[in-house]
């Protein structure tokens, strides 16, 4: 680990000013991802500004019926929040599917959104990686790719986004609030993360120094009928091979509206708009679900070790939709 300075932020404005000034400064939230990366030499900031004890650690209801989640709210607290469990079960499920209890107790909402890929080559500083060191090449392309992307990847990077929570937030049309060097702004979670393109070192659209302060969940009544499923190599503490977050609004046997996002398939949580379009107004049948999944996955391009992800994603989406549409009421 390289030498660095540590400061505890006392207020958001000072924190943003401090980090914006120094290109090698980083925010520190729960530390579960960044501290690990500093140990591995994947990340070597000069200055850490600890924002984990800034005041935004509350969950509040907004006048429009939405919910505002402070960036410092711990994953475990958010998952336990009654309003989340009742109105956004997909989010509670996704949070509980991530990491372990000990890490969920540390991890923050803002930090979780910004966790970096678990690509084994990104983690291994002895191998080339365009995300870690732009221009060095992508070792995964010809390497071990079970966990890698089948959608939206580029010749420069085939990594996947590791967060479960972000998949649920993407499906829920959540919006991120930030405070940056150019002031505050709001970004839909679906637009927060980037596809790798030729700049795989940039995970998100955030500017340097831009700090996530809160995440808003829209009222979205259909979210009460939502679910998250994660397929992984063991029952606890493993990253997703494939995951699905979905919410449905059903009238009789017809799907009125639907929200779907995939995890484990792409460099970002993958909002499945093609599948959503195929499902809106369609009857809730196995055939429809499969057609919708196929529509979304038609562009999928597997690597040497991950062809299985395509049928697995189709089956997972089908099973989540079957389950949600067969539920009694909402």
């Amino acid at each position, binding site marked *: 680990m390289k030498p660095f300075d540590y400061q505890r932020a006392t207020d958001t404005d000072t924190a943003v000013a401090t980090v914006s000034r120094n290109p090698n400064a980083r925010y520190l939230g729960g*530390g579960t991802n960044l501290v690990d990366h500093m140990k591995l030499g994947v990340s070597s900031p000069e200055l850490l500004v*600890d924002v984990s004890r800034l005041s935004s650690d509350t969950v509040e209801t907004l006048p429009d019926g939405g919910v505002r989640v402070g960036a410092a709210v711990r994953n475990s607290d958010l998952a336990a929040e009654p309003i989340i469990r009742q109105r956004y079960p997909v989010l509670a499920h996704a949070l509980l599917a991530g*990491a372990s209890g*000990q890490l969920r107790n540390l991890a923050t909402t803002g930090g979780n959104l910004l966790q970096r890929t678990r690509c084994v080559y990104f983690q291994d500083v002895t191998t080339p990686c365009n995300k870690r060191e732009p221009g060095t090449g992508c070792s995964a392309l010809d390497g071990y790719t079970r966990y890698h992307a089948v959608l939206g990847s580029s010749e420069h990077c085939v990594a996947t986004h590791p967060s479960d929570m972000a998949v649920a937030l993407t499906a829920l049309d959540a919006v991120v609030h930030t405070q940056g060097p150019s002031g505050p702004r709001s970004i839909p979670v679906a637009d927060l993360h980037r596809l790798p393109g030729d700049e795989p070192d940039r995970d998100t659209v955030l500017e340097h120094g831009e700090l996530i302060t809160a995440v808003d969940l829209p009222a979205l009544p259909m979210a009460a009928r939502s679910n998250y499923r994660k397929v992984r190599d063991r*029952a606890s503490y493993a990253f997703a091979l494939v995951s699905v977050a979905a919410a449905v609004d059903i009238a009789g046997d017809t799907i009125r509206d639907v929200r779907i996002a995939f995890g484990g398939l792409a460099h970002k949580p993958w909002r499945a708009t093609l599948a959503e379009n195929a499902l809106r107004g369609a009857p809730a049948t196995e055939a429809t679900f499969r057609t919708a999944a196929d529509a979304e996955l038609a562009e999928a391009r597997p690597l040497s070790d991950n062809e299985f992800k395509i049928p697995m994603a189709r089956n997972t989406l089908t099973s989540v939709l079957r389950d949600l549409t067969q539920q009694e009421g909402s």
Partner: protein
Amino acid sequence: MRLKFTVNGRQAEADDVWEGESLLYVLRERLGLPGSKNACEQGECGSCTVRLDGVAACACLVAAGQVQDREVDTVEGLAGEDELDAVQRAFVDAGAVQCGFCTPGLLVAADDLLERCPSPSDSEIRESLAGNLCRCTGYEKIMDAVRLAADRRAEEARS
């Protein structure tokens, strides 16, 4: 930097702490509390589980500066002067300890569980201990130990 925080109810101080040291390193190498274990130091195994302001957390991923003025409870704080805590006794009696390297983290996690949920179902025990790896026991006797500890605590509470 100079670090001040509370460990097992007592004020602790460490000087010349380097910012990159973890809470685990500070406990083990600076404060003489090696009970919290260093199996992975990447938050993957739970062997370093401590309570941070009452909440179970992996000490290996907490940067030293983050514990300033906070309260930390480790496995060393579980037992009384002479008497083992009910969870500790149950682990010994049930044969849940083999090499013992996972034991301190499991004890803190089990203690945390029983505080939140005094008579957990088997599923709740498994769910709560899923962040603690054990390579020796196959977990069966750990299940036995947590059930036994729950029973004994309930008994102690009644008497």
